[in-house]
C-alpha cells in the first residue's frame, strides 16, 4: 500500500518518539530523505503521555506541536504509523528493510468527525492511559494525536460494532477489510530510536503493584495528572476515588538494584519531584514524602531540587522502602524502611504510593538483523567500527528529554555521515 521510493541516500528512523522525531527532522532539514516508522498509531511516543516536563513544568505537546509543524511543511520526511521493522539486512550505505504496517482500518479519508466513535458501543482498555480507563473501540488515541486520524481496534472489525462504524462514516474512511501489509525500503543508514518501556513494577513484588490498587507507577501518575487523562487531571486514589491526603514517592523502584535494573534510570528523581508539584497544585494540604537513596539532580536541575526542598509539605527521606503492605479495610498503605539519616525504623501510612519505576531500553530485536553492539542491559552502543545503525535517545542510556534530543541530533549526523561515506 505504501508507495515509498527511497535510495541508499535515504535514512530510516525507527521510532516516532521525541528522539526519533528529532533525528528525522534534523536530517531532513539538512536536506536528506527520511522515512520515519512508528509502531503506535500516533507520533510522540512517551513524551506525549507526559503531563509536564521538568524543570520548567511545561507541556510536552508544546514542543511536539512545533516538531509536527516542522514535519508538515517538510516534504523530505515521510512517516508511517502502526509500522514496525520486520526485517533488516545489508550493511552501512545499503540496507534493505521490510516495514510491516498493521491495519488501522481507517484510511486517509478520515476527517476526524468522530461519528464512528459515537456509533461504536464496545469499549477497550485505554493503553494510552495505561489501562486506567476505557475508550471506545473506534477511537482517536488522544486529542493531540498526530496524525489526527481515528483507529478501529481489531477486536470490533468482525462485529456489529465494526459494521456500525463503517455505516455511519460519511466519508468512506473505514475499511474493515484492511489487512496487514509490508513494503520494502532501501536506505543508507538507520537510526534506532525505539525508546523505552517502564520497568515492570509487578516484578518488585514486595511493593504490591497490581495487588494493591493504591500503588501506582510514575508513568501512570503522568496520565492521572493530565487534563486528558483518566481522571481529567485529578489525583485520586484508585481504590475509592478519594482525594489524597498523603502520598509517597518511592525512588529506585527497580533501578540501582541488582535484582532488577542495576543501572540508575537517571530521570526518576526529577520526575518524582515534578509529580510532587502536581500533587501540591491540586491538593495543597497533601503531605508528600519522597523516599530516596541518593538524589540525582544533575547540573542546573539542582535548582529544581532546591526549589522543591523549600516546600514544607514535601519531605525527602533517605530510605529505600523495604516493603509495602495494605490495610485491607481502608486500602491505606503501610511503608517500611529505615530512615538512614536518623537510624529510625520507619513505618508510615499513606493513601497512595507512586513507584518511580525505571527505564528499560527497547533493544533491536529483529531476527537476522546486522549485529549492533549493546551493553549487558540492552542499551545500544554506537560502535564506530560497526557504523550504519545508530541508537538515539533512551535506547543508548536512560536520560531526560534534553539529552535525548541532543543525542538524537548527533545520531542524525552519524546517519548522514554513513551516507556521505558511500
Amino acid at each position, binding site marked *: 500500500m505504501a508507495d515509498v521510493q527511497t535510495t541508499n541516500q535515504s535514512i530510516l528512523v525507527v521510532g516516532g518518539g521525541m528522539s526519533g522525531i528529532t533525528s528525522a527532522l534534523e536530517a531532513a*532539514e539538512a536536506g536528506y530523505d527520511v522515512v520515519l516508522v512508528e509502531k503506535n498509531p500516533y507520533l510522540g511516543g512517551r513524551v506525549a503521555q507526559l503531563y509536564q516536563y521538568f524543570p520548567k513544568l511545561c507541556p510536552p505537546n508544546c514542543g511536539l506541536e512545533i516538531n509536527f509543524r516542522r514535519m508538515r511543511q517538510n516534504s523530505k520526511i515521510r512517516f508511517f504509523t502502526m509500522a514496525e521493522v520486520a526485517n533488516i539486512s545489508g550493511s552501512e550505505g545499503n540496507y534493505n528493510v521490510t516495514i510491516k504496517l498493521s491495519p488501522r482500518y481507517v484510511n486517509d479519508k478520515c476527517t476526524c468527525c468522530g461519528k464512528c466513535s459515537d456509533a461504536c458501543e464496545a469499549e477497550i482498555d485505554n493503553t494510552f492511559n495505561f489501562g486506567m480507563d476505557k475508550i471506545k473501540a473506534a477511537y482517536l488515541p488522544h486529542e493531540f494525536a498526530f496524525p489526527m486520524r481515528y483507529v478501529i481496534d481489531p477486536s470490533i472489525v468482525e462485529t456489529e460494532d465494526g459494521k456500525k462504524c463503517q455505516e455511519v462514516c460519511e466519508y468512506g474512511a473505514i475499511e474493515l477489510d484492511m489487512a496487514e501489509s509490508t513494503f520494502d525500503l532501501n536506505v543508507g543508514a538507520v537510526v534506532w530510536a525505539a525508546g523505552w518501556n517502564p520497568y515492570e513494577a509487578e516484578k518488585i513484588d514486595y511493593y504490591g503493584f497490581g495487588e494493591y490498587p493504591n500503588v501506582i507507577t510514575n508513568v501512570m501518575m503522568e496520565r492521572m495528572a493530565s487534563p486528558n487523562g483518566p481522571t481529567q487531571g485529578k489525583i485520586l486514589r484508585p481504590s475509592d476515588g478519594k482525594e489524597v491526603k498523603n502520598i509517597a514517592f518511592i525512588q529506585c523502584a527497580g533501578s540501582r538494584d541488582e535484582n532488577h535494573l542495576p543501572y540508575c534510570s537517571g530521570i526518576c528523581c526529577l520526575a518524582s519531584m515534578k509529580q510532587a508539584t502536581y500533587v501540591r497544585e491540586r491538593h495543597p494540604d497533601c503531605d508528600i514524602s519522597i523516599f530516596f537513596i541518593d538524589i540525582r539532580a544533575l547540573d542546573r536541575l539542582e535548582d529544581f531540587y532546591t526549589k522543591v526542598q523549600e516546600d514544607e509539605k514535601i519531605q525527602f527521606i533517605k530510605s529505600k522502602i523495604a516493603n509495602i503492605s495494605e490495610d485491607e479495610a481502608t486500602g491505606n498503605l503501610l511503608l517500611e524502611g529505615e530512615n538512614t539519616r536518623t537510624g529510625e525504623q520507619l513505618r508510615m501510612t499513606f493513601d497512595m504510593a507512586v513507584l518511580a519505576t525505571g527505564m528499560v531500553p527497547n533493544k533491536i530485536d529483529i531476527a537476522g538483523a546486522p549485529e549492533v553492539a549493546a551493553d549487558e542491559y540492552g542499551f545500544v552502543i554506537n560502535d564506530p567500527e560497526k557504523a550504519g545503525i545508530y541508537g538515539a535517545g533512551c535506547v543508548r542510556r536512560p536520560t531526560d*528529554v534534553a539529552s535525548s534530543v*541532543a543525542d538524537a541530533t548527533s545520531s542524525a549526523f552519524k546517519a548522514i555521515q554513513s551516507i556521505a561515506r558511500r
Partner: protein
Amino acid sequence: MDKKTAVYICTGCGIGDALNVEQLLEEGTEEFTIDVSKDHPCLCGVEGVEVIKKDIADEGINTVIIGACSYRVNYDVFNFGPDVIVERVNLREQVAWVMPPEDENTQELAEDNLRMGCSKAKDTQLPEPFKAEEEYSKDVLVVGGGIAGMTAALETAKAGYKAILVEKEDKLGGFLGKMKQSVTMPYKELADTGAAEMIAAVEAEEKIKVYTSSTVEKISGGPGIFSVDIKNNGNAVNERAGAVVQATGWVPYDANKLDHLGYGKFKDVITNVEMEEMAAAGKITRPSDGSPVKNVLFIQCAGSRDPEHLPYCSSVCCLVSMKQATYVKEQDPEAVNYVLYKDVRTVGQAEDFYRKAQQDGNIFIRGAATEVGEAGGKLFVEADDELLGENVKIEDLDLVVLAVGMVPASKPAVTPRIKAPADAENADEEGMIEVLPDSGFFANSALNLAYRQGPELPTLKYGFPDSHFICFPYETRRTGIYSAGCVKRPMETAKALDDAAGAAMKAVQCSELTAVGKAVHPRSGDMTYPEFNMNRCTQCKRCTEECPFGAINEDEKANPLPNPTRCRRCGVCMGACPERIISFKNYSVGMIGNMIKSVNVPEEDEEKPRVICLICENDALPALDMAGIKRMKWSPYVRFVQMRCLGSMNLVWIADSLSRGIDGILLMGCRHGDDYQCHFVKGSELANTRLSKVSETLDRLALESERVKFVEVGITDYEKIPKIIDDFMETIEEVGPNPYKGW
C-alpha cells in the same frame, strides 16, 4: 503576481448543517474579487481535491481559500505546490463544532472568518527567498579545541563539510589533553582518554583547518555569510563560515574561594584538576614534601550545590573522584581513599563505576566537611557524618582533594557593568549597572560578534549559553551559533561527544537551509523574511533592541541594518515598529490590520459585541483547536486572528480596532518569565511589555483599560479557554459597548 482567487467551502463534518453556505459564500466574499466560489460535501476527499486541482489547471486559479477544518489537519491534502497560495478558514473547530447550528451569531462568525481569510489571501504574496550578495559558505567555525570542539570539527568533516577550528592554547586537547585517563561508557574500567588519537585525527583531516594560539577577534555577517577575523599568533586571518559551534569549555571553580576547606592554607589540599595533572605527570605524591600518599580524602561538591558558590551540580565530580581514587589504588593497593559526598550522582550506566569504586574498597562517607586542618604534618578533616549522625574526624591524611565544580568559560569572573538607562533603579554612583546574563554583553570574550546586541551569546543564569533547554537544547539566541560541551552545561565525556556531534549537525543544517533562503528552527523552511521600508524609518531603535536573536544591526545614525540570514521570522520587529515599515510577504501590519477591518461591527443597538483575539499560533491556537475538537462552547462574538508569535503584535491593531468600535481585545500568548514557553524566547514577554503602553491609546480614546487583556495560554490549557473567553465577555458586558461603533 496577478491573483486569481477561488473560495471553496466544505460542507462536511457538520459545517453544512450549522451554516447557510450559500449565504456564507455570498456575504463572506462580497467585498473581494473572487473568481470561483464553490462548496463541496467532502472537500478533503479525492473528489473534492480534484475540483480544486481542476480549477487551478483550467481556470488558472493561484490563490485558494478553503473554508473547512483547522489548518492543522489535512495540511498535506490541501497543498497545491509552491506557486499556489492557500489560505485556510476555520469553519469546523472554531465554528460548526462549538457554536449552535443555524444560528445568526454562528453564521456571522463564519462570515467574518471567511472575510478575514479573503482579506489575508488578498494581501499575501508568494515568498521570494532571501539571497545574500556574498557567496555562501557551508564551513563550520568551531571555537574551542577541547573534546567538544575537536569532536564537532571531526564530525563535520566526516559528513563531508569543512571545519575551521580555533583554539586559544598552543595545542589542541583542552582538559581532555590534561587528563590521565577517563571514565566513560561502558563505565566498567578506566579508559584511555583518546586525546592523542583525537588530536592526530584532527590534524590529519584535510577538511579541518586548525588555528592554535588563536582567538576569534570578530565575527560579522550572519549564517551562511559569517566573516571571521582570527588572530593567529599575532597575525590577522580572515575565514568565512556558514555557522558556528562554540565549544569553549569550562574552567574549574576558583578554589581560592574555598578557604574553609583549607585550600591555599595547606599545601596538601589540592583541587581535582591539580590531582589530575599530578596523576597525568606521573606519581601522586604529597605536594608539601613529595612523600607518597597513603590516605586520601576527596571532598565532593567543593563549591558545587552551594548557594554561596555554584548553586548547580557540576555533574562529573562524583565520577572524577572515583577515577582519581582508582589512580591512588593503582599506585598503592594498600592506600585508603575516603570520599565525602552529599549524594553520589552516577546516573545511567555510570552506576557501574560507582560499584567498581566500592568494590575497590573506597570508603564513601555521606556528609559535609566542617573543618580541614593539620596536625603533626598530616591533614585531618572533620565532617558531619549524616549516616552515623555524628561529627567524625578523619585523620592522618596525606592528601585532600577538593572536587571543584565546572564554571562555563563564558561566565565572567566579575559581572560587567554598563551605563545604566536613565530610569534604572539600581544604578551605582557612577550611573553604571550590572549586565544581565540574558544579554549579549555578559559573557567572556569568545566570539566577538559584530552584533548590535552584544559580542557574545546571551546566557541563562550561571552563564551557560542556552535557551530552550528541554525540547530544543541547541537553540541559542544567536541564529547559526550553537554551543556544545561543558560551556552549555556540565557534562561528562560521553555526553560531550554526543553533544558536539549534535551541535555540528545543527551548524551544517543551518548552512544548508540558509543557502536556499530558508529559516531555521522553529519556523524552519519559512522562505519569507522581514523587509524594511527604510523611507519611513524614524530611527527609534525598537526593532534593533527588541529582536530576540540580535538579527538587526544599526548604523551610526541608528538606522536598522537587517541581517536576514540571522532572522528567525518571528515578526517581533514588525510588532515593535511604530511606523509599520517592516513586512513579510505573507505577514504584515497592513495585512492583519485589513483582516481586522474586514470584521463586521454590528451597531450598538444590536447588542452583539465584537472582540478580536490575537492568538499565538504555536501554543494557544492548537489549544483552541483542541477545545473545538472537544466540542466545548464559548461566545460567538470573538474573532481569532492568528499570530506567528504574540511578539509580532503591533499596537496599531489595537488602536485601529478600538477606534472602529471593536469592544475588546484579547491577547493569547505563551508563558513568559524564567520558565518561558515562547518559542521565540522573548516574544510573549515583549508583547506584554508593549501592552503596558497601550494605556496611552486607551486614554486618548477615553476607553476603559479592561477592554484589552493579555492571558497566558499553554497548549494543554484548552479546558480553560471557554472560561477565559466567557470571563472576558462578561467584563466587556460590564464596561458596556464601545462608543466608537458606527464611526
